């Protein structure tokens, strides 16, 4: 069955029936090519999605003060709420079990100068834990630490683009920049996957900011990271309890919705995960759909090819070919074509996906890729179904009486 002669006969037939070979091969190659490209694109779409939402830590609560909308306990409405260091401490003490970290954030924009260069940069006064909430990555030097907070050090950690703008080629570590009216020593440079804007920030200790602003203890926002093991329900309960605590402390009516705001990333995360899940289903649906379409295409062409050869089968049988030989020759020929064209189609798809890497980000497709195992598996499925689709009519054709097959035009 697998003698050299058989193969010679098979390749001879393939070579001499170019149109048939082309049709079969093209259908197969196109089928698997489309599977690879579509699956690759949906994977790219998922990548974009993850990049959009995967940057910041996901176990984070943002607490913002607002203005009251109703009078309560003798206070008028439309009162501005202001957080201070004691709120930070209260949350920390009351919810210690559930918290991974907690940090205040005071945001200002200041003119920053170094030698001849100057520019306006947003600076955030924070605690060391802030590093976790934004997934800030230190490139050089270090981030702020507890000691810096305690001694109210005039230290600054600058973003990669700040360092690039102000220091050019110079090493910024240990140099002094003028931020607002004070000199700050640069102790670190960071990068952030969140994009250029995130890398144009400067971090300083929040106690230092309070010192500069007449020694107050005011803070703007509180960012806290909860222990991921408390889960979604735990995060929602935590959000509720923190709101309750702060409303009592700041004399805000329970029903007042605008006194305090909490942005819960866990809630957003859940929505995002649901969206990602839907996206995953769509991707799977696409993959299965295109594979089925490929199977139908390849099966069709196989049935057509065998039908077309009915008369040839009759001739070969009259000349002494046994049904087994007839079937195996047709199938070997067909699978040879589908294997060769299937894998070239797959290869073409994979190469194009690789080529498109980074070129389609405007269309929300980041690094389209296909799992090689998946691609090979899909190709094999198409080959197997193509063979089955060829086998059934081939078997039937081989069973037709030669005299009937010979009459087939």
């Amino acid at each position, binding site marked *: 069955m697998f003698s050299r*002669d058989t193969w010679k006969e098979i390749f001879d*037939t393939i070579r001499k029936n170019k149109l048939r070979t082309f049709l079969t091969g093209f259908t197969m190659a196109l089928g698997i090519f489309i599977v690879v490209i579509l699956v690759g694109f949906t994977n790219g779409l998922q990548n974009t999605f993850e990049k959009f939402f995967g940057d910041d830590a996901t176990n984070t609560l943002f607490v913002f003060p607002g203005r009251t909308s109703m009078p309560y306990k003798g206070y008028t409405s439309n009162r501005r709420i202001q957080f201070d260091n004691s709120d930070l401490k209260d949350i920390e003490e009351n919810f210690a079990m559930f918290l991974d970290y907690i940090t205040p954030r005071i945001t200002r924009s200041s003119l920053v100068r170094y030698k001849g260069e100057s520019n306006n940069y947003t600076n955030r006064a924070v605690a060391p834990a802030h590093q976790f909430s934004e997934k800030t990555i230190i490139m050089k030097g270090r981030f702020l630490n507890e000691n810096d907070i305690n001694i109210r050090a005039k230290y600054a950690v600058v973003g990669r683009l700040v360092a690039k703008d102000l220091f050019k080629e110079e090493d910024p570590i240990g140099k002094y920049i003028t931020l607002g009216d004070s000199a700050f020593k640069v102790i670190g440079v960071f990068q952030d996957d969140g994009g250029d804007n995130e890398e144009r920030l400067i971090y300083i200790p929040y106690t230092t900011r309070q010192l500069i602003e007449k020694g107050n203890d005011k803070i703007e926002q509180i960012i806290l990271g909860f222990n991921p093991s408390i889960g979604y329900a735990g995060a929602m309960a935590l959000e509720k309890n923190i709101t309750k605590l702060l409303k009592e402390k700041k004399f805000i009516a329970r029903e007042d919705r605008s006194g305090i705001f909490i942005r819960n990333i866990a809630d957003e995360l859940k929505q995002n995960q649901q969206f990602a899940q839907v996206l995953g289903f769509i991707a799977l649906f696409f993959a299965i759909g295109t594979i089925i379409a490929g199977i139908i295409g390849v099966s069709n062409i196989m049935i057509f090819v065998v039908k077309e050869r009915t008369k040839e089968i009759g001739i*070969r049988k009259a000349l*002494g070919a*046994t049904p087994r030989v007839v079937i195996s020759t047709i199938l070997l020929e067909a699978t040879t074509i589908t294997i060769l064209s299937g894998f070239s189609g797959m290869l073409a798809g994979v190469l194009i996906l690789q080529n498109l890497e980074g070129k389609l980000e405007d269309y929300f497709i980041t690094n389209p890729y296909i799992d090689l195992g998946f691609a090979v598996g899909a190709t094999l499925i198409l080959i197997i179904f193509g063979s089955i689709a060829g086998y059934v009519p081939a078997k039937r054709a081989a069973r037709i009486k030669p*005299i009937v097959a010979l009459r087939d035009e």
Partner: protein
Amino acid sequence: MGSNSLHVLKGINFSVEQGELVAIMGSSGSGKSTLLNILGMLDEADSGIYTLDTVPIIDLNETKAAEYRNKFLGFIFQSFNLINYKSAVENVALPLYYQGKSRKERNATALEYLDRVGLKPWADHLPSELSGGQKQRVAIARAMAADPKVLLADEPTGALDSKTSCEVMDLIQKINDEGNTILVVTHEEDIAHMCKRIVYLKDGVIVEDKKIDQVRASQYV
């Protein structure tokens, strides 16, 4: 075929000796093609005995029938039935491929038989590049190539003009002269008279079976 089966042959009793050239004649529907199909193991008789060179041909499955066809029989068809994407020599070599002969041996034998039908120069031509008479000669060479015991020709001249028909019959006569047994189904009287014996079929029975004086086809060529 179940309920609508039809008894085409209703008791045929005849034998063919080695080296005979027999014409089977009859109008359409007389059962001559059915007889040939049974002889060619392309169809099976409901009952009766068919012995080919002392081998009883009974209970054939497809594989067995294919082997016997390959070993014992050579077919010549009205519509030639060459494989259109194979050259003349490849067509002739095909029965040898199914005998498991080596490529070299196949090609040598095929060329030899093509030479015998006078088509060696056309060995590498495709059927589409040959005339009707040439195609039938290739088909005859192919039928001969496996060195069969019997050649079965189903209207071999049916698709040819009278001059080419005579050429083909001349070739068949020459092959018969070498001692090969040949059965020819035809409905043309003049073709039948180029054989040595005529069997007339009518409504599934033999109405006449006579030896005749052969008309040589070479005088018309």
